[in-house]
């Protein structure tokens, strides 16, 4: 049965309506209003909102703090995108190939995903602690005390340490997606290549990788977005410090908006982040989609 063109399908509207209203109220309207607030000097508390034109954007382009946050965001995003996916793919291949205990391994690797960012941040913060933490205690116990590090206090290590926590926490999720994709790869293709004399690496590179490229697209997109909006771990582990060492764009947005009473500037940072995400996402989609193999 076909509906007449132009006629509203009431049943469809009933299904779409609630989600549409919620999406509009909680996403579309705040997003649009953000553009307005980014042109003001609103402090986030006072009812008075003063229009200041493009002053916030001018500050963004001249502020060393924004540049530092952008650089940190970029480093974390690249680190997370690469290592989270590499680690997740490794885990997925391992789980896919084990002969027994597949479900046990799958569950075990997925457990960190279930822990909240705040909780995992606290756990790792304790482990990283210079004087009482697990890592330095192990080094001390092994007679390697001279290699003890101030894992979160050393400005050269801070971002790396946060990145490791993100990879540990997120890899299990991406593993599931890779695993599902790996299990859809036809065994006949692998067997045929094996009969033709292809090595394990050749089979992986020329058959498995192209056939799971859809999973790469999804996972890289997700990890890109995750890297750009990392917040919980930074909030708990370093509060953006030491100094400004681990301040990312989202954290800068939060700090200036909620801590420094500059919601207008914070919102302008948010708008800039929106455009950065749009551009990066579009480039990434274009690049990855062109490499996907349709079965």
């Amino acid at each position, binding site marked *: 049965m076909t509906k007449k063109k132009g006629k509203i399908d009431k049943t469809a509207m009933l299904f779409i309506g609630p989600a549409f209203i919620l999406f509009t109220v909680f996403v579309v309207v705040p997003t649009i209003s953000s553009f307005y607030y980014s042109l003001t000097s609103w402090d*986030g508390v006072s009812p008075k909102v003063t229009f200041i034109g493009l002053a916030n954007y001018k500050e963004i382009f001249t502020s060393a703090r924004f540049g530092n946050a952008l650089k940190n965001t970029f480093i974390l995003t690249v680190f997370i995108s690469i290592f989270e996916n590499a680690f997740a793919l490794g885990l997925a291949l391992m789980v896919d190939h084990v002969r027994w205990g597949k479900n046990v391994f799958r569950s075990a690797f997925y457990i960190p995903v279930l822990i909240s960012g705040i909780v995992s941040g606290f756990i790792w913060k304790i482990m990283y602690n210079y004087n009482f933490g697990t890592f330095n205690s192990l080094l001390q116990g092994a007679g390697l005390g001279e290699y003890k590090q101030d894992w979160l206090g050393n400005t050269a290590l801070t971002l790396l340490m946060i990145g490791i926590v993100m990879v540990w926490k997120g890899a299990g999720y991406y593993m599931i997606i890779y695993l599902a994709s790996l299990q859809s790869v036809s065994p006949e293709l692998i067997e045929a290549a094996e009969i033709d004399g292809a090595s394990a690496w050749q089979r992986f590179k020329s058959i498995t990788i192209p056939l799971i490229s859809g999973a790469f697209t999804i996972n890289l997109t997700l990890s890109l977005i995750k890297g750009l909006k990392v917040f919980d771990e930074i909030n708990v582990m370093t509060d953006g410090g030491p100094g400004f060492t681990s301040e990312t764009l989202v954290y800068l947005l939060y700090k200036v908006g909620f801590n420094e009473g500059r919601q207008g500037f914070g919102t302008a940072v948010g708008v800039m982040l929106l455009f950065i995400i749009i551009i990066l996402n579009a480039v990434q989609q274009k690049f990855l989609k062109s490499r996907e193999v349709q079965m």
Partner: protein
Amino acid sequence: MKRRTMAAFLAAVLTAGALAGCGNDAGKTDTPAYNAAGSGADHAAAAPTEAGDDAGAGADTDADAAGGSIVSAPTELTYIFADGDEGAKAAMNEIVNKFNETYPDITVTIEPGNGGAYSEFIKTKDSVGEFPDVMEMRDTAVYVRAGKLEPLPDDIVALFKTTTAFDGKVYTAPFAGENTNGIIYNKTYFDENGLTEPTTYDEFIELCQTIQDKGDMAPLVVGGQDIWHMGFWFHKAYNDQVLSQDPDFIEHCYDGSKDFSDETFKKTFEEMQQIMQYAQDGWSSTPDAQITTFMVNDMAAMMYSGTHMFSQIAAADPDFEMGWFPVPSPDGKTRLVGGGGVGGLAISAEAAKDPDKKAAAEEFIRFFYAPENYKIYCEKLSAIPVTVDEPELEAMDVFKEVVEATNNADDLAPMWNGRVGNNELPPDFRNFTYKTLIEVLQGTRDIDSACEELNKTWKVGMESFNPLTGVGIE
């Protein structure tokens, strides 16, 4: 292709939009459309007031304390304070429990207060429509100007020796005299090694060097992960170098006659660099909550903190023998943090619209400062009482030393960020300064560049807040 681009756009909008927009709109929705008594308070008019002469104008609290109802229906109050300090947490819980038992028809519920970053936490609660009914207020001027606080009745104001008024109205009941910082040290270690309390700044540095050379423990433990802890040391150096030369330095930065490239400000960083070379390894990732552990486990000989640490150290190790001394300034004078502050217990203007909540909140404050209850707070935090009717404290010897030092100090003033009027800092300039300081101390930024950054941030901050021009005040 169009569909793909649209999908990418929507994915981005979902992420960034939710991040950028929600907080702002929530804040807008929850901004009350009323003009509270304090709204538009003349900031420059903020001034300490002596105990009011019209004491006793309030309700008869004795009858209420005996169990009489002061509300027309069961009333619930939410209460938030900076709970990062164990002493504060224990004291507040005890007083609130007592109150709830005394007033069966009023329930005060303590909500977690995220002591580590309390000011932003309160702001976040306000933005999401969860501003507490009663709270510990720190950024009093900001919230008074925004009309978020209810003025306290005269009988409550009269309970205190001094309070801070905005346009003639008092909005906060001060918890205690400003927390006087000084060096708390391991007395046993000092005695065993023949170390004595320094009487000059040079002797203090020499003492640190001696302990460092011995190598038994770190001379100083610093909780640098909590930037407010860094503020203790920063204020000391700033007080020594800047305030000693120009008590109105901030006002002069507002009027443009000075900036943060001033030589005195650079010397503040230099003094900090000199002191911090004696801090323990890993100081920048050590939270304030951990410094007691360093002291009682013989990992550090000294800490620089407030009197609230006395009870924490005693609780961690009752046998720990502690001593206390103020760190003299390089010019030989003793400058200490002290006197009354602008923060304290406050009532939400929104909550005060409900007569029951208003009555209950005011009664809670009266109850809190009753000598037998206030005593709990002062003893747990080694706080200097600020009430006219002082509780009788069973104080430690070190606490008595602090009180004596504050009586004999060459200068007694609030923290640099606790000043009001023309010397009030723009919102969060304090935190920016501390973070920049950490960069300097870690060697990732030199002093000149740090001063430049502060100048830039100051300039931006002044555009939205300047008590001299009234921007951000009215």
